[in-house]
């Protein structure tokens, strides 16, 4: 038993988390005694420090830092013999594991856990909003529900689930055995559940959970009850995780591409994650700063945002949106990558305008940093800045438009395989267009003056993040499910899931455009009677939308446990991850593959993307496009 607490693992993790709390008590005791403050042990002070020390203690106990501690103290480091790679039982997913495929699954499963929790909160909100007046939750709880809903789905679902999918497939796609920094990768993952649990724990705080929205505008967040710090500090862990992963992706993509994998032979998913990672490393420190400033205002008496003490209230919004606008692209670009993969494979055609697809991603990265103040058109900032921000906001639709049109051209004259991933990709294409259109409307200042902070915004953001990001996430999960689990999902349930989601997504969110323009503000627990029937209809649709997620959950769990075995390459894809077994061997490739052509040469006779040496799988049956020579996707040359 004692041994369990001495070695790295969950037991020691919880023990060290408790040590972390004790350390917080000790530090606060020492400092407050030093400054003769009364009371010596102030609850909020201990809590805020413990929210840092306890998760760090957990990570130390879990063993996330072990290697570096050995190295830093001059001890003999544990040689990495990769014996821990692969997961042999469910317990292996609860350990620090440096295998990118294990980490990828840890990421995806964890983030879907928070997806369901966040979705459940949305159901509770819709139950309250089904009728005007107060029925189920009091206004404070309601404000907490939408704040935690947004925070979980942004920081614990969309951002990390993309990181998780890419964690699994990106090294495979570029022909690498793992990520560049496997230990950092494991640490990035383990910070995530801590951030999510912290946000959920806020409901236990005195005064309720954080309730100032995921935007946490100062000074509301500075004066809010103590539950606010669970967001303030939780975001630090989610953000650190995000930055570390992005660095890892950048180094992996730059340094670990297989021979012959030039930048313009990379699959667009790799390009998308390259662009996203650039956004993350540049932008995410800004939200970290904004929340630290709130924390310092709250607990250390700084006056960054305290107007009465010459603080600047608008500064918070500028710093916050300098991250949080690019964050919208952080939540969108990886989806662009997923859709590019799926549309090419499922249309059996090369991506139309590959180079412009890559360049438009980079254009979005650059332009994404020039539009943040469009969230502040009615904030009272200086008037003149609105016009340039309106123009950049409209212009960023141009590279996005290039992508939409190129995807449409990719469909054109293809051979469309209309299975679940493809349906979600096509659903994305149409729904994201609507989100983009309402986005352009929101660039137009006179319209925004009227609709900002209304349900029109709620509709817009859900067309972008649900109809956009989530549809690509579903597409990607179905598409790579055979590769990640070695099983096939149930196609009929997948299609049922798509149609339920597609129809009730629209019935839920489309009416919000109307009630928003009619004047219903967002983030309200109660509303004027004139919107009662609209809201009832929205709530009913949203409950069925919620049920559709259960179809997905059942399909995933049942298929993972007992679905038919998946072939190596059920989609006849050219990219490298499909040229190895499903699931891939522990070290991905027996020998480093050589890349000799583009990733999407469907229909090109004899086209080859990568050459694998000594692969365990035979050459996938190639397409017999354009008649003549049998096109092979990957040529296996077994010289031994």
């Amino acid at each position: 038993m004692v041994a369990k607490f001495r070695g790295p693992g969950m037991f020691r993790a919880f023990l060290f988390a408790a040590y972390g709390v004790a350390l917080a008590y000790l530090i606060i005791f020492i400092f407050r005694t030093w400054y003769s403050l009364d009371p010596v042990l102030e609850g909020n002070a201990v809590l805020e420090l413990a929210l840092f020390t306890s998760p760090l203690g957990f990570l130390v106990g879990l063993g996330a830092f072990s290697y570096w501690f050995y190295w830093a103290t001059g001890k003999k480091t544990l040689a990495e013999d990769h014996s821990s790679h692969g997961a042999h039982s469910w317990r292996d997913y609860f350990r620090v594991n440096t295998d990118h495929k294990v980490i990828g699954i840890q990421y995806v499963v964890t983030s879907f856990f928070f997806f369901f929790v966040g979705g459940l909160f949305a159901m509770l909100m819709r139950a309250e909003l089904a009728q005007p007046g107060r029925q189920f939750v009091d206004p404070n709880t309601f404000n907490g529900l939408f704040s935690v809903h947004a925070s979980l789905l942004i920081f614990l679902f969309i951002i990390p689930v993309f990181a998780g999918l890419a964690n699994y497939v990106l090294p495979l796609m570029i022909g690498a055995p793992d990520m560049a920094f496997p230990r950092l990768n494991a640490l990035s993952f383990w910070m995530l559940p801590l951030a999510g649990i912290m946000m959920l724990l806020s409901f236990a705080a005195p005064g309720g959970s954080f309730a100032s929205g995921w935007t946490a505008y100062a000074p509301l967040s500075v004066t809010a009850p103590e539950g606010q710090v669970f967001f303030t500090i939780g975001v630090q862990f989610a953000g650190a995780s995000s930055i570390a992963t992005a660095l890892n992706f950048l180094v992996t993509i730059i340094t670990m591409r297989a021979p012959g994998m030039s930048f313009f032979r990379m699959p667009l998913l790799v390009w998308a994650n390259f662009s996203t990672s650039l956004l993350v490393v540049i932008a995410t420190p800004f939200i970290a700063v904004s929340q630290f400033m709130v924390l310092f205002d709250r607990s250390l008496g700084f006056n960054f945002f305290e107007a009465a003490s010459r603080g600047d209230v608008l500064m918070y919004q500028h710093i916050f949106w300098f991250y949080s606008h690019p964050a919208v692209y952080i939540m969108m670009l990886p989806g662009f990558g997923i859709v590019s993969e799926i549309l090419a494979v499922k249309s059996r055609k090369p991506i139309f305008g590959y180079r412009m697809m890559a360049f438009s991603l980079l254009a979005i990265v650059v332009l994404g940093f020039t539009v943040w103040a469009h969230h502040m058109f009615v904030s009272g900032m200086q008037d003149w800045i609105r016009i340039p921000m309106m123009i950049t906001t409209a212009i960023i639709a141009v590279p996005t438009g290039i992508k939409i049109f190129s995807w449409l051209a990719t469909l054109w004259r293809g051979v469309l395989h209309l299975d679940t991933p493809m349906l979600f990709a096509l659903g994305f294409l149409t729904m994201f267009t609507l989100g983009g259109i309402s986005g352009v409307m929101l660039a137009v200042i006179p319209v925004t003056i009227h609709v900002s902070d209304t349900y029109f915004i709620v509709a817009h953001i859900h067309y972008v993040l649900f109809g956009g990001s989530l549809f690509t996430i579903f597409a990607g999960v179905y598409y790579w499910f055979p590769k990640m689990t070695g099983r096939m999902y149930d196609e009929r349930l997948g299609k049922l899931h798509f149609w339920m989601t597609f129809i009730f997504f629209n019935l839920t969110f489309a009416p919000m455009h109307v009630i928003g323009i009619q004047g219903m503000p967002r983030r309200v627990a109660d509303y004027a009677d004139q919107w009662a029937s609209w809201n009832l209809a929205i709530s009913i649709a949203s409950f069925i939308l919620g049920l559709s997620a259960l179809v997905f959950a059942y399909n995933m769990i049942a298929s993972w446990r007992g679905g038919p075995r998946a072939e190596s390459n059920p989609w006849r894809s050219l990219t490298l991850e499909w040229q190895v077994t499903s699931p891939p061997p522990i070290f991905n490739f027996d020998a480093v593959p050589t890349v000799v052509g583009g990733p999407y040469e469907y229909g090109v006779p004899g086209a080859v993307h990568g050459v694998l040496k000594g692969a365990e799988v035979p050459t996938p049956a190639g397409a017999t496009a354009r008649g003549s020579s049998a096109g092979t996707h990957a040529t296996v040359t077994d010289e031994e």
Partner: protein
Amino acid sequence: MSEDARRQERIPVLQMVVVGLIASALGIAAGLSIDWFPERASTQAGPIDHLYDVLIWSSVPVFVLVAIIVLFSVWKFRMRPGEERLDGPPIHGNTRLEVIWTAIPAIVLVALCSYAWVVLTDIEAAQPDEMRINVTGQQFAWTFEYPQADGKPVKSNQLYLAENQPVRFFVKALDVIHDFWVPAFRMKVDAVPGIETKYRVTPNRLGTYPVVCAELCGLGHSVMRSSAHVVTPAAFKAWLAERKAPAGGGGSGGDGKPDGKALFTDGNGTATACGSCHTLADAGTTSTTGPDLDKELAGKDASFIRDSIVKPDDEITPGFQSGIMPKNYGDTLSPDELDALVTYVGKVAGK
């Protein structure tokens, strides 16, 4: 279908164009016929609504284009039995097309932005004879202040405006950020602690319209509502003159004494009604934003009730937070009205 048959099959481009045009026309007609906006009660509303119509005109065809291509592709290019191993033609791109779909959206967007700029300049333009109104937001009430020549401003929790009299709002916040919005006027701006924000409207339609707070400001955000009354210039003058008289006018009973129950349920035109946040059986109010007065005030003496109204944060009912109830009732209720309210509540609470 064999690959050759596929190649020879005619792609119904003309059909797509026709269907697309019809769908766009229907979509635009539907978009324009939806009653999107609330009443138009200011000169600013017209140009904004018109701009929105232009956005409908320009965005419906974009969506129709995308949807038509997706739907026709699904219909015409879907994999048919026997085509499992077939690939599409290896088309890698088309520079001319790519230039077109980069340039045209850019031009359209810049044109839209230019038009929006014109509208913005128009709706924000200074008007002759603007009347100044100071707007103060605090958790969770609005105070409208009409500066007067004698230096004693008229204060009100309800907004009164004269028809066709341009006004300029100077907006402040006392605690956190609020947002002063009258949907019927289309204009809004945040009330920000530490700075003064402003905007102009010219109300041009008689009526009463909702005033709402559009920026999340805490617990009572959703009930931080008031009313904007656009009245004739003569009626406005009369209202102003009445407000300048020392005792508040609204809520008066027939005998000239304030009616406590009416004050409770309707306010006095200056102070927000108690009933919008509190439950009181006798008054028929059921809101639960604040404590239930039937429970909390039953059997309490008059001085406790008076303190609870004037200094709400001195004693907080368990389960509720301080700082929620406005602290300005001592200013917005006249002494007579306060007396009437205390007497009324003391008499009926818990009965």
